[in-house]
């Protein structure tokens, strides 16, 4: 049983295979990093199902990650809904299709804007906080201290956080969607008389399960990616305060990038399966 894979070195020095020694050093480092990430993910899946379950910590993290991110997510989503509607109106008006505004904005928000904006905001807020928190825990030996106290730090710190992000981001996205639609409704209301019933009727009339389900499913992957990157970077943080900053920073950058990559893959998969 490994306790600290990042610091475990092979018992005997092995001579490098020829094909490895030929590779440039940067590429070797990159491969090494990829290997570490794969092991990290495997370890997560191994430990997530093995008891004991740190339920209390999962709830605590869910509160920190989910509930505490709500104001930021809601504000961002509201502004995006409002601005998107105001910006789309002139173009639609040019084609005399202003009545399509709720449907168009609704589909944009539910399919793409809502999940991605919320995920990016969370990548910034949650990714950095996890990266920094775990980084400082690592640097100040809190992770070691946990291990010595008979608690599996990977399970207590990493698994609980990744589970929390995986399940909280979708909820935040749903709430963000709702708030963005309200923002959109206010923007439509500013320029034309429309009842909230008619607005939501128009939104949902043009929305299909094939719009909603893939968009919703991919948010779980967003959440998983954000949690995973934050934890990986923090857990493997380098010594020193500089390492903490670097962990936080690279968590945000990589998590944001991953959100877009997952989004791209999700689009391809959705199209491949013919909208389910």
């Amino acid at each position, binding site marked *: 049983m490994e306790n600290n894979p990042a610091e475990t070195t092979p018992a005997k020095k092995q001579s490098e295979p020829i094909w490895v020694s030929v590779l440039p050093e940067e590429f070797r480092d990159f491969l090494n990093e990829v290997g570490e990430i794969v092991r990290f993910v495997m370890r997560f899946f191994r430990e997530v199902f093995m008891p004991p379950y740190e339920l209390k910590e999962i709830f605590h993290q*869910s509160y920190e990650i989910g*509930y505490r991110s709500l104001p930021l997510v809601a504000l961002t989503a509201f502004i995006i809904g409002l601005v998107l509607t105001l910006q789309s109106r002139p173009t639609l008006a040019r084609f005399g299709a202003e009545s399509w505004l709720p449907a168009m904005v609704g589909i944009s928000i539910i399919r793409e804007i809502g999940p991605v904006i919320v995920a990016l905001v969370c990548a910034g807020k949650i990714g950095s906080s996890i990266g920094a928190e775990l980084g400082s825990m690592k640097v100040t030996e809190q992770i070691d201290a946990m291990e010595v106290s008979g608690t599996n730090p990977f399970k207590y710190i990493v698994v609980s956080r990744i589970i929390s992000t995986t399940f909280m981001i979708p909820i935040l996205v749903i709430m963000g969607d709702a708030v963005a639609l309200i923002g959109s409704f206010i923007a439509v209301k500013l320029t034309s008389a429309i009842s909230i019933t008619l607005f939501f009727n128009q939104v949902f009339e043009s929305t299909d399960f094939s719009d909603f389900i893939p968009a919703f499913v991919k948010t779980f992957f967003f959440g998983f990616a954000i949690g995973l990157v934050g934890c990986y970077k923090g857990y493997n943080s380098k010594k020193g305060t500089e390492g903490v900053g670097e962990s936080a920073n690279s968590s945000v950058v990589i998590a944001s990038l991953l959100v877009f990559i997952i989004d791209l893959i999700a689009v391809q998969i959705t199209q491949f399966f013919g909208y389910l």
Partner: protein
Amino acid sequence: MNIETIKNIRLGFFVLTGTALLILALYFIGSNSNLFSKTFKLYAKFETVNGLKKGNNVRYGGIDVGIIKNIEIVNDTTIRVEMSVEADLKKVIRNNSAATIGTDGLMGNKLINISAGTAEAGLIKDGEELESLASLNTDEMLRTLDKTNRNILVISANLRDITQKITDSRGTLYTVLMDTTIAEGLRHTLGNIDVVSNNILQISDDINDVVSEAKNGKGLLGTLVKDTVMAEDLSKAVKEVRTAGEQINTSAGELKVILEKVNNGGGTLSTLINDTTSANSLKRSLINIDASAKKLPDLMEALKHNFLFKGYFKKQEKKK
């Protein structure tokens, strides 16, 4: 309250709100695509579905009442569409209701329209098949329109040819239509006929008088009775007068028929275009009438000069 409890309450509120919103969204979208209402299945077979897809709407009387559940190819020319329709519609859709594939708006999604059946047909049951009507295909419509256009083009070309021919050939119709002299000639002839018939009337009166005087034995009756030569002459003259009158009568009858036909138009016109014989006969009739009319004064003159009637005519002149 314990800070931990407060956090848990907030977390619970957060998660429940999110879940509620999720369920709400699923319900709204689902109710839009008929997932949660009671439905029954209907089928319809088409030769082509024009790009109809799973999930497209089914409409009855313009209302969305269901969705397309499945589309399968039965064989090379038959595609079976499975529809899931709201259960309420069982009370409305009849056995002879028909399904057509239509379009939502000009560019919108394809959909199936179910038309109302007639009251005498029974209500449809779950899993039954609807009649299908070949869909109104815009392509086909345009093709038909194209054909119609070409036909109209041909017709209008023919018409132009006909009118051209009428003008160019100066045939009877053109003459009838355009020449004023014929009309005047006709009027003139009719005027003549009128005069002639008046004359005939007078002559026959005169003859009547002569005959009655002869019966009464006045004047030259004796001579008349005895002289057979004279009697023959007289009867011959009377016969000639009658023949002439009959001829005039016939001509007038013919003329009348023709004029009636001309007046009524219709069939006569076409006859006039194609048939020159009637025109000829018209012409001949006019000539005959003219000739008869010219003969009559001669005949009258001959009668006057006949000695048997000399006295009578003198008497007539004296009376005047």
